[in-house]
């Protein structure tokens, strides 16, 4: 599902520290090998949902503001978010292993 994949990538992008929205989008594009490039509306909806779920929180950012007078919001993982990301990564790894195993079997039979 697109949304859930995007949720995973948002969590992943924030694993190494707080980022602002635009940087999250850049990071996701890089980490997904260019297959995902969320546009503003979708991205902030996912961020909102993850915040409502308690997996993200707003935080103080360390970067300089590009436009004076316009504060940028930064987002960071909560501890719950960090744990969920770990669980999800494990689940994906297992699923991937299972898929490889099964594909190998199928190849062997034909």
């Amino acid at each position: 599902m697109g949304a859930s994949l995007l949720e995973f990538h948002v969590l992943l992008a924030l694993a190494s520290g707080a980022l602002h929205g635009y940087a999250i989008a850049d990071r996701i594009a890089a980490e997904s090998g260019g297959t995902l490039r969320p546009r503003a509306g979708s991205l902030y909806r996912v961020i909102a949902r993850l915040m409502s779920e308690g997996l993200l929180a707003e935080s103080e950012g360390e970067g300089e503001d590009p436009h004076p007078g316009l504060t940028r919001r930064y987002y960071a993982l909560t501890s719950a978010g960090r744990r969920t990301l770990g669980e999800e990564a494990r689940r994906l790894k297992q699923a991937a292993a299972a898929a490889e195993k099964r594909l190998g079997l199928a190849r062997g039979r034909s």
Partner: protein
Amino acid sequence: MRTFLRFLVRLFPPSFRSHFGSAIVEHAAIECERDLSRGRVAALRSFLLTAFDIGRSAFSERLRPSWAGVPIEKEGTAMTSSFNVDGWAAELRHALRTLRRTPGFTATVVGTLALAIGTIAAVFTVLDRVVISPLPYAHPERLVFVAAEAPGSEMTGEFGPAAEFYLQYKEASRLLEDVGIYASFTNSLRVGDRVERVRMGAFTNSLYSTLGAQPQLGRLPVASDEDRVAVISDALWRTWFGADPSVLGRSYEMAGASRTIIGVMRPEFQFPSDGTLLWVVAQVRAEGLQTGQFGYNLVGRMAPGTDREAVAAELTTLARGLPQRFGGSPGYARLIARHRAVVRPLLDEMLGPAARSLWILFAAAAIVLLIACVNVANLFMVRVESRHRDLAVRRAIGASRAQLVRLQMAEALVAALIGGALAVCLAGLGLPVLLHAAPAGIPRLADVSLSGRTLAFTLLAALLSGVLCGGAAAWRGASPNLARLREGGRGSTRRRRLGRDGLVAAQTAMALVLLIGAGLLMRSFLALRSVDPGYDTRDVFTFQFAPEQASLKDGPSWARFHLAFLDRLAALPGVTSVGIVENVPLDEGTRGDRFRGEDMPDGPDAGRPLNWTFAAGDYFRTMAIDVVDGRPFETADHLSVHGNVVISRTAAQLLFPGQRAIGRRVQQQGQKDWHTVVGVVEDVMQYGFRDKPQALLYFPLAGPTPTSWSITTPAYVIKTARAEVIAPEVRTLIRQVAPEAPMYRAYTMAGLAARSMVGLSFTLLTLGVVSALALFLGALGLYGVLSVVVAERTREIGVRMALGATAAGVRRMVVAQGARVVALGVAIGLLTALVATRALSGLLFGVAAFDGPTFAAMASLMLVIGGLAAYVPARRASRVDPCESLRSD
């Protein structure tokens, strides 16, 4: 650009917007700036995608908020729970994708539903505007139309009350707040050089207050105006007077007298019929009133909290006192003793039989929609069967029943909604066709158009169809048989075959009911067309004009004018014969009075109530009315006022029972003159082909009394093969002899005949189209189901053929399976039709609601079509190659 983005962001719900709005705008703006470096086209494309994304997200956000307002501090949330919130939206997206993958299936489903929903949406639009929406008056539910009946008296059926009823009701009724009388007629309106015959109403002043109507300009008439004033319609005000407010107070010649315009009614005020352009004052006074002049239209406003039965009972009682108060003959008193008031909603009276036709049509369209839903439901059932394995797997790994139901319903709903959207377009296209075919005289038809209510109805119909279509499949798919995972999910179980066969039988039954209805109407139509009304409507043109010249000062001079004009018409090329009649059949009614033969006693109740008119020229020859005895009129008959008379066959029997009428004399009640019968002609049907032939007296052109001529407007009839095209030449002739007189009521008699049957032909046409649609959809459903059955049984059939079954045997087997289902449907349909066709009884003619031949013919048609629909899959089955079918495993 930012302004535009900010505007777009407003689509989000406020709570979301206040938190993330500026960040989204900022984000999108930076993105655009960066995209600009990649070229203008790419930037524009990207910007549009971003804008679309914002819109889409905002829409989803409103449907399923992801922002709860406050972030929840939660420990150990499982990722999966947040992944499932997609719910319906995800199913809908999934459904859309699935439908896109199977374009053939989707086109069939969406097309079927669009056709059926479009049909019912168009019919609903007309029904809603014409029948359902209330009259544009205050508390329209309290408005009633009052008629009278007197079983066992001379007056047969229902008739309009007389003026004294109005006076009595108005003064004494406690249950009617207000009462008014109206009449509708056409007469001349002259404004400057412009003279036209227009439709007018004559209202008592109390009718305006009864209806609760107010003018948009000026005032309503009051008693002191007497009958010297008129109120005009919004349409007349705009077209003739350019919406000039100074028209108030000006006087024009209307209905033969100069009247002053005192008010302009609102646009929605169209009483008693659409196209009434002005209203003059009808005065009813107790002084000098002659009782028993029946035929008035009476409208009342019921007091709050009373009902029609109570009002009818009160009015019946009030009428009993009439002979005592107003006098009248003993016959009048006898009639009053039997009189009963008939009270019904005013809207019913205005709609007449149109309401019933529209409801029948609506019911038929609903049946077609049901049939379409059954078809689509069957298609979805088949699909769910083919997906059985997939569903069983889903169920096995923990999908809830609700999720599986959702999965099935989503697809049906998406298909139905797309079908509904197309249906609105179809209804928009079909509505003008429907309106064009509709009979004239249906009130309020002019302002029928697609409305918000149509859209709401279409949406409702689409959602309902979606639920109906997806319901069966969802129910089936929600509890997949897990055991069948093992057996590989093949073969058709008895249970699901029963379900499908039941649906096919049901739609066969519904289609048959519609077919029988259409068949009955068809037979009525043919019966009406073959009725002999006593005259021939082919190749006859009729028109009227009313010369107003100073030289036309008495009966003979007036008759001479018209006889001279007859000669001019007869000289037109291609004209076989011409004649004049005061009231041309199928267009106008004749007058009634009492007449006695010379052997009958005199007195107020003497003689017989008979209708009369007058005729001249070759009227009987032009209309092909047989002269059974004596002779038709000659020119000399018209020029002396007290002259001869021609009477119809039934009139002769009534006036001179058992005797030859020629040479005998007839007298009209209250007149001194006697008229001598010179000819007897065949009876004619005056009002329509459902009528009884009427007993009629024909007077010479100037009428029965010395002053009759002055209130008459005769109709000319011309027998010519050029009836359709002769009107311009006639108009030129009229302009030569009477430039002041407009030509009006110009028709071909064939056109009048068609008009008299239009209520029936409209219902026949629309019901015919709708039932053809039902037949087609029903056959399609049977074909679809049998195709699937054959596909499912390919292996079985292959085995049978391998074991020696012949191709013909296999065909028989499949056709027999279809035939059993169709036969069941036909049986149910016949039983249903026995009850359902009663709704048509008012429209039928010359055929009973239960007409054996029609029932048999339509049932056979259904069986034949069913057989054909079954034969195609049967042929396919008989071509199964045993080797192929067994290898396919």
